[in-house]
């Protein structure tokens, strides 16, 4: 997290629309699906949204003017589609049944401290339990490693709003983890 590499990925401008789409799906597909999951918390829905994102992206490729990076553009489409979905009647009336039971071991190595799996699972679930407006800033800032300015552009919110939401989100997360063992 402290060692960030925020270099935008370049895309060759001489590619055809189809080639660009293929490239974007390969480059950003997983990230888009994962971002969608942090909003919707359902695997199938996140995949559907990610597909929709790339369909929209293809249809609007000609109108993309390089004012932002492709990644920011794709993320903006993703966030908007997810929020539409969250507001939709169908989404609000289905019972969310997916619960996170899968965890994965990590290897300890000389350069990596071992952290308990169950603890990571707990933190991840607490993050996903935050209200959307706090969850999204936590995800964008810490998980996507975006700057305040990038998040402000993406969510179309004032810089100060982003900062105070992030602060509030951290406080909420801390509170929800109280009583749990924090081993950093």
């Amino acid at each position, binding site marked *: 997290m402290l060692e960030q590499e925020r270099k935008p990925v370049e895309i060759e401008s001489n590619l055809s629309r189809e080639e660009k789409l293929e490239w974007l799906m390969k480059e950003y597909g*997983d990230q888009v699906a994962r971002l969608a999951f942090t909003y919707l918390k359902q695997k199938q829905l996140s995949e559907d949204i990610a597909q929709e994102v790339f369909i929209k992206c293809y249809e609007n490729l000609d109108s993309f003017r390089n004012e932002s990076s492709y990644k920011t553009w794709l993320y903006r489409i993703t966030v908007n589609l997810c929020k539409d979905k969250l507001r939709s009647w169908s989404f609000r009336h289905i019972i969310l049944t997916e619960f996170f039971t899968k965890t994965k071991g990590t290897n300890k190595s*000389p350069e990596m401290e071992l952290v308990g799996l169950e603890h990571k699972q707990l933190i991840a679930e607490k993050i996903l339990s935050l209200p959307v407006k706090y969850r999204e800033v936590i995800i964008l800032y810490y998980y996507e490693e975006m700057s305040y300015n990038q998040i402000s552009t993406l969510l179309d919110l004032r810089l100060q709003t982003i900062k105070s939401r992030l602060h509030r989100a951290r406080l909420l997360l801390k509170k929800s983890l109280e009583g749990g063992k924090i081993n950093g």
Partner: protein
Amino acid sequence: MDDIFKKIVQTMNETVLKDINFNEKNQENVRQTLHKRNKKSFHVKRKLNYLLPTVITLLFFLGTSYFIINELKILSREEKITGLNKNNEAILQEPKIDPHLSISPEQKESYEEMTKKDVVAKLLNTVDYFHTAAGKFEEYSLFYDDSVSTSIIEYKLSLKNEIGGYEKVTTLFDEKVMGFKESIQEYIYNNEKLWSKESLNKTYQVQDYQSEPTRKVVTPEEAFNIKLKDVYKENIKFRERPHITASGTSLFPYEITSIYLRNMEHWEIEKQNEELLGHNTIVLFGKMDGQVVERMKMKGTTDTFRFWVDKDTGILMKYETYDKDGKLTSYLHPERLDVNIPIDPQTFVPNLDGYHLPINTRKKVNIDPREVDIEVVDYADAIKEDTEDVLDLLRKDIPFLYEFTHSKLSLFSAGYEKYKAYKQAYLTYIFENESQVIYVRAYHKDSVIRTLSDFNREKGEQLEKFTLNGIEWSGYEITDLLGAHFIGMKGDYKYEVVSQDISLQDTKELLKSFKPSNDHKKQ
């Protein structure tokens, strides 16, 4: 606590986002949808008759054939998984574990000549080369901040037939750095459940066990193309492995291979055959790649390395790293390794006598209703530039601000809050090793402050009052954690310093470097 935020990428990718990806099938769905839409517009808009690019058609045929191939691949993979599931179902219907020991094929040592590429390919795909393994090794690590850790790892696991494993990790810590000497953790899993037992507080946790589907063989190129910063978060790119932690370093050495061996020019095969605990190993010796040393914070600790790889399985039986003077700095030294031996399935059932589920010790804290009037002026953490901007603002606006100047402490977060006209400062410092944290806040004695768990822990033993750098301090031990809480007064201003994983006396020692901000020379 703050460490959580630095590790969010890893935490999320290893848990809730582990299985979320945009696979070939999703990509194909996009292609198909677009193709159908294009077809529609072809009928509606005659004008496009000649403009419909052949590439779309080509894309469709390519896509379709790719789809079929892909589907076939998926089918064959699904068959594999279904096969696995069938196996699991049979076991699920028969919850009583069969006492018969599973028989694995006898392991034969390999003496064939191997190329560098052969070794890497095996290291990255060990899961294909053995059915069961049992062993014990010691792992010693020297970190860049001179702290050390030693672990003794004992394990038994089965990848086929009776799926399950047992692992006992005894970690001996440098008490000065970690605050405690030893912890024993045990992990036990079978095809239904995963248990983890913690010796310190005699607690256990249990969760559902989910086996991973078989993934395709990983090539050296694929493993070396993973960016260093992603090695630990993109686990999906490596082969599957069971839910074990410490023994994976030896049995499934995917990350360490990707990191240490990525520069093929920098290492050589030192010996084709060397006997080690009854196994025939190939010995590799190499120099660390500069980029790796930089990224993985190995400067000063790791200049060269040596690997002993079991030729028939690819298991990393032993490794050593050395500094510039050739001094041993970290190692994995095996005591024994048995491959494809029968393992009693009872090994995969935990003994929970004397262990209990963790009790939620959360206390109800009364929140001052006036706290709603506290506003955040600015806040930043984790990213140095952002944090320093907030610190500059605090220095400018808060004349009563104090900061730590100790060389081993670095600022992790800075917060600026206000209650009406009262300004409040929050600073968090971390040690180089990042396991110890110091929380600071400074505010006017009449100001309402936020209720935060870090500053509201139950206090124990109290120190004599003392004065340092103009502040009169009272110091308390924290009862349920290793740490201290110091409350200081200077005129109308109050200072709180809370340490995590640092003893009362050590925290008092650190307070010597807690000085007024205006003493600092601005960078």
